């Protein structure tokens, strides 16, 4: 029997994989893809509980999350392009202009 706990554990594992990608990788495009993985993990959780309670509200919020993810990807990739044009790099360890 597959309970929401199974889906929660799957979602937690996917979220943690995305988090490891954000924390360990230095290519900013891969970091953005890891953020998409984390948003997907949240969506799996919402849909699992929506299915459990037979209420479509969770799916509506998953649609909003997809919408926000699309906006985030568009703006974030625009920033990457603008930054690459100035510094010729996508390595976040070299993006320390405003750090200190």
């Amino acid at each position, binding site marked *: 029997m597959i309970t929401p706990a199974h889906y929660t554990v799957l979602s937690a594992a996917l979220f943690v*994989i995305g988090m490891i990608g954000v924390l360990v990788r230095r290519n900013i495009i891969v970091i953005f893809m890891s953020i998409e993985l984390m948003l997907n993990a949240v969506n799996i959780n919402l849909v699992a509980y929506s299915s459990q309670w037979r209420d479509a509200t969770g*799916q509506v919020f998953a649609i909003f999350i997809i919408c926000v993810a699309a906006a985030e990807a568009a703006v974030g990739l625009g920033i990457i392009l603008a930054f690459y044009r100035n510094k010729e790099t996508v390595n976040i360890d070299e993006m320390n202009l405003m750090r200190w």
Partner: protein
Amino acid sequence: MGESIAFYTLAVLILGFAILVITARNTVHSVLFLVVNFLFVAALYVLLGAQFLAVIQVIVYAGGIVVLYLFVVMLVNLKRPPEVHQDPHRRSRLALVLACVLLAEIGAIAVWGYVRPDVPVSPVSAATAAQNVEQVGWLLYTHYLVPFEVASILLLVAMVGAIILARREL
């Protein structure tokens, strides 16, 4: 039984491709693994009876967002490997350990919260695809009409912002 097999197969595939996304050296390979990962997540939505969301996932994620990533990977034409320079203050191992601790924590909470028997996830046949689309559409255009419009404005603002950011003379 069939649901269990489908769930475990999909779970293994989703997690495996997610790991491939973050470990692939070549960024283009990473993007392609991400497409496959999104498609399997869409299959998981079908298993959960959320057919409309599965279609949205395929169209918006696998079709739209990933193409955007692919374009940026192609536009960012790297002359040297992207990850050669490493900040000496970076603590990757500590990050890995903390991530594993977080996974153990969330997993323990999820399992501990469901030791008592609970209502099982409704089977796929509980709502047909047409009913699912009807439910989601009804909620989206009645209860959540204002958030829906706000989301559309957010997308408009993001579009304008992306165009301005990607212009030649910033």
